[in-house]
């Protein structure tokens, strides 16, 4: 059964402006997260009763690492958690990325969409795939060394030009020759995903995108978070938390 458990905070370090790396130890063995899955984090105070869905950056045994941006009241409260404190988290939820059986994957991350690709990169390497990673940041980099260790090639883009390519990550990729055998797995802001979907359509590359939406329950009961897909000519609505968060990039309707 899936469950919500009290995990102990092992560390909660600021690794870039507003970006925190939270490491939790789970009381006993949890089902391992698949690449691209998320956990619900329950802030549990009167003003923030609903869970915050946070993608899994890394899970190693009973250690769970989440990298998040302290952007609203709920995540800002997470940012003040100290080692030894407890935090309620759910089992891994949602469908993750489908890794190909062989060949090459290109992982494309933007901003706070970067973290889940780390677990994905490790899983792809473990499967013997060749892994290229392209990461886009506004300014400050984070997790760069971790990605360097988990990939065969790493591209960096920054919007302010402080590191790597000056521009966004899709502009960077548009200049590269991408092999036709590449499966593209992406997570990032909607404008990035929209532009990437256009690029992949043009290059005829299969694309999987991880979407974000304001959620209620985060496990599929309330139908608060839906996205629109075009499937077989018809527009269908899917729950981001349960049917996703990863969807076929060629089907997603980016509004």
């Amino acid at each position, binding site marked *: 059964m899936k469950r919500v458990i009290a995990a102990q905070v092992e560390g909660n370090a600021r690794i870039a402006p507003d970006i925190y790396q939270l490491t939790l130890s789970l009381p006993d063995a949890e089902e391992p997260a698949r690449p691209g899955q998320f956990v619900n984090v329950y802030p549990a105070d009167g003003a923030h009763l609903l869970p915050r869905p946070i993608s899994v950056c890394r899970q190693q045994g009973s250690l769970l690492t989440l990298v998040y941006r302290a952007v609203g009241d709920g995540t800002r409260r997470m940012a003040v958690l100290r080692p030894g404190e407890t935090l309620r988290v759910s089992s891994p939820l949602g469908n993750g990325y489908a890794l190909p059986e062989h060949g090459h994957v290109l992982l494309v991350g933007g901003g706070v969409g970067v973290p889940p690709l780390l677990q994905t990169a490790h899983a792809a390497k473990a499967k013997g795939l060749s892994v290229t990673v392209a990461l886009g940041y506004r300014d400050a980099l984070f997790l760069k060394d971790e990605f360097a260790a988990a990939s065969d090639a790493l591209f960096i883009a920054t919007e302010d030009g402080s590191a790597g390519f000056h521009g966004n990550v899709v502009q960077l990729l548009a200049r590269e020759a991408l092999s036709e055998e590449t499966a593209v797995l992406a997570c990032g802001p909607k404008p990035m995903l929209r532009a990437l979907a256009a690029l992949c359509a043009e290059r005829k590359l299969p694309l999987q995108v991880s979407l974000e939406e304001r959620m*209620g329950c985060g496990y599929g009961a309330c139908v*608060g978070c839906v996205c629109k897909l075009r499937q077989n000519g018809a527009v269908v609505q899917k729950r981001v938390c349960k049917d996703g968060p990863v969807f076929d990039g060629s089907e997603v309707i980016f509004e």
Partner: protein
Amino acid sequence: MNEPDLHISFAGLSLKNPVMTASGTFAARESGAFYDISRLGAVITKGVAAEAWAGNPTPRIAETYGGMLNAVGLQNPGAAAYIENELSYLANFDVPVIANLAGHSVEEYVAVTELLNETNVAMYELNISCPNVKEGGIGFGTDPRMAARVTEAVKRAAKKPVMVKLTPNVTDITAIARAVEDAGADALSLINTLLGMRIDLKTKRPLLANGTGGLSGPTVKPVAIRMVYQVRRAVKLPILGLGGIMTGEDAAEFLLAGADAVAVGTAALINPTAPVDVLEGLAAFMRREGYENIAALKAAFQGE
């Protein structure tokens, strides 16, 4: 002392305990991933209409102190898909299913009733908070005459008991309760969500794409308790009480106010196992206080 007897009889249904799920906060596979749904007295499924509804644009959810606003807009796949996917799956569990019914007109309510008559549904819960599109979009549940008319029509078509879910967005809920009782309802459930709104201070726009939405969660509990108390004194029908139940103690409070059963809604979004946690909490409360059964707990109310 012995384990308290939680069994109840509710509008003709024999239930192993008085705890149900509230409509819109339960899905069989998704909720069942966190707990054994056979432990509950009954499950009330998400609002279903004769044909599929697309619901509202996103964002559909907003938070507020002690609760949340939702404007899902009753997105549902229609009766045929509900029967095929949700009802057939629920047939694997030892739990009565109460189907929450939605419609934009009396005819639509009757249509979905007829579509579900030959299924394993044990009872209907009529969501009369939907706007009546044929009468200027006024909610059926805000006008005693319209509430009675839709109740009567569904009751005539229904081959199962009909529970009517009352909206709290009225001046006098007892007037609606009486009208619905006179129209032949078998039970009442209350309360549905309170109409609310929030505005994003950054964008200056409403937080919900729909503008307004239904307020639920622990913050609404005193309103719900007051309405259950008032309706208990106005009608004889069995009452399912809901609105902000987070714990077994909250459930006991509703039973004392006059409810015969309780439903857990928003709490299940905040804590996926909330329905069974409330059930265990209610049993623990009754053990602690020495009540042998639900009737004894209800009879302990000292209000008047």
